[in-house]
């Protein structure tokens, strides 16, 4: 197991470096001068050159990348152009709000997905299966930012039960586990959960169906095992694949939260990304994407290891 973990970590290193390279290059595919946001419109050539040297934009690209990577390894992602504060601190604060949202959504989406998937797979080709499958298809096809709007229309505008935007009373930015804050989490979490719900349902349904049609299930039933016992075998066999899919979905929720956070003004990493894009705050944009992508890579690594831990066949592969 340790050897497997070590091998996986070694595989991850080139990926991490390439991810950093992509994030670094993002700023350089940006049209226009990266200094445009900091420079006053009437700045002299001299001042521009001075600033360019201060930010290191006058060096050759590979040197810039090397220096940037070295600083990033020390946790220095530069300062936000808009606020002047360190990027890393800004991103981490926002990410914690996104993690709250993603975990809440994962609890809803994965529970629903596993249940619907198991039921649909067990009662294949019946009306129960059709209902569950329709739910799943709707979940993966719905533009979630629109679903968010519709939920706001129903529960905030028409019924006035839940707040429409924000993450806490009086525009509070910090999260707390009380009802006053939880009320703000309900709609964004449900909205975020529909895609993972749909995908997990489809995966678990297919897995359950496949496993139930295998010969060993026949054998289990023939030896007189109770249906709940058979079910335990189904769950055990479906777990590794289902776990991998759920891990990936959790990563998508963390990294792809920008649309939902924009709809609900949820002060997370996606919201930060949105303001970075529109204020042309390139260090912040770069830093946010880098941190989110690294989270995703790290999560994939964890899933691989967890999968190997519950399914010994993987280690040999």
């Amino acid at each position, binding site marked *: 197991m340790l050897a497997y973990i070590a091998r996986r970590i070694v595989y991850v290193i080139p990926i991490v470096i390439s991810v950093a390279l992509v994030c670094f290059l993002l700023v350089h595919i940006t049209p226009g001068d990266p200094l445009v946001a900091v420079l006053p419109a009437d700045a002299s050539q001299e001042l521009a050159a001075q600033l360019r040297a201060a930010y290191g934009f006058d060096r050759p690209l590979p040197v810039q990348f090397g220096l940037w990577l070295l600083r990033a390894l020390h946790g220095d992602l530069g300062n936000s152009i808009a606020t002047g504060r360190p990027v890393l601190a800004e991103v981490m604060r926002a990410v914690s709000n996104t993690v709250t949202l993603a975990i809440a959504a994962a609890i809803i989406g994965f529970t629903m997905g596993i249940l619907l998937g198991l039921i649909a797979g067990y009662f294949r080709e019946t009306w129960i299966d059709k209902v569950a499958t329709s739910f799943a*298809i709707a979940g993966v096809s719905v533009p979630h930012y*629109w679903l968010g709007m519709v939920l706001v229309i129903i529960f905030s505008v028409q019924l006035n039960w839940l707040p429409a935007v924000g993450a806490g009373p009086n525009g509070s930015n910090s999260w707390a586990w009380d009802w006053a804050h939880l009320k703000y989490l309900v709609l964004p979490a449900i909205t975020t959960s529909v895609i993972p719900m749909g995908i997990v349902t489809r995966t678990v349904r297919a897995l359950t169906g496949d496993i139930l049609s295998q010969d060993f299930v026949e054998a289990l039933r023939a030896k007189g095992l109770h249906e709940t016992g058979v079910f335990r075998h189904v769950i055990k066999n479906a777990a590794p694949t289902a776990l991998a899919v759920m891990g990936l979905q959790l990563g998508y929720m963390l990294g792809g939260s920008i649309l939902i956070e924009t709809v609900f003004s949820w002060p997370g990493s996606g919201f930060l990304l949105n303001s970075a894009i529109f204020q042309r705050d390139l260090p912040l944009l770069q830093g946010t994407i880098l941190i989110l*992508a690294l989270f995703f890579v790290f999560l994939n690594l964890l899933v691989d290891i967890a999968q190997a831990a519950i399914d010994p066949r993987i280690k040999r592969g």
Partner: protein
Amino acid sequence: MSELPLSATSDAALQAAPATKARGYWATVGRRIMRDKVSMACALVLLLIFLSAILAPWLGLEDPYKGSMIRRLRHIGTVGYPLGTDELGRDMLARLIYGGRLSLLIGILPVILAFCIGTSLGLVAGYVGGKLNTAIMRTIDVFYAFPSVLLAIAISGALGAGILNSIVSLTVVFVPQITRVAESVTTGVRNMDFVEAARASGAGAFTIMRVHILGNVLGAIFVYATSLISVSMILAAGLSFLGLGTKPPEPEWGLMLNTLRTAIYVNPWVAALPGAMIFAVSICFNLLSDGLRSAMDIRN
């Protein structure tokens, strides 16, 4: 995930073998999908949306750009404005139909582009193998390290707002996914006897790829690509929704949803209409893709 396409292609290979056949593989698939009611209903809805978008100028609709301050945010069912009016008093029905032109274009074009690029890359990587395969597939892996929404927004955000930029960014998101599928089905086909026979009879690499492999892998890649259209529609409209796609006053579903967002307290259901269009197109493509996939799986 790749098991299904693989079995579909090997079936295709088997079907292609006899010189005289009662009915070709694609004819069988076509016949099977014609009998599938859900697929046909979806195809009909999509056909209607496509035709109305293409024929919009000849349908006798209101001018989708002409607003009026005195008739802003009319409700659904108002006489003369069956679907109400938007925040600038423009006819919603006309804007939704005209909106289809841009929304469908920016939603579907990236998948078509990625289908062409990804199939070529995957075919070459899978057939040539060796170092070239490693080079192509490891580069692809880098893009897999980003969640697709994040990647689309990162590229689009860095390039700046615009239709062309959002098409480029979505193409970049889908190329790796299609390349992976294309590579895996190509690797499955390349060691088959008929490819070996073609090679033994002196056919060049390009000829083998074009004549012997492409025909056997294209179906599987195509089905996979159709399943991406729904995601692409949602993402493309999402980019516009964020303000990264097209600019006002252009009618586009994602952008309309954005500008109408402030109107949800005044006229909520009119504000939700553009999203319903995205949903309809997306779910129809998903169901149609599922239908196509099971129609191609000849075994059952």
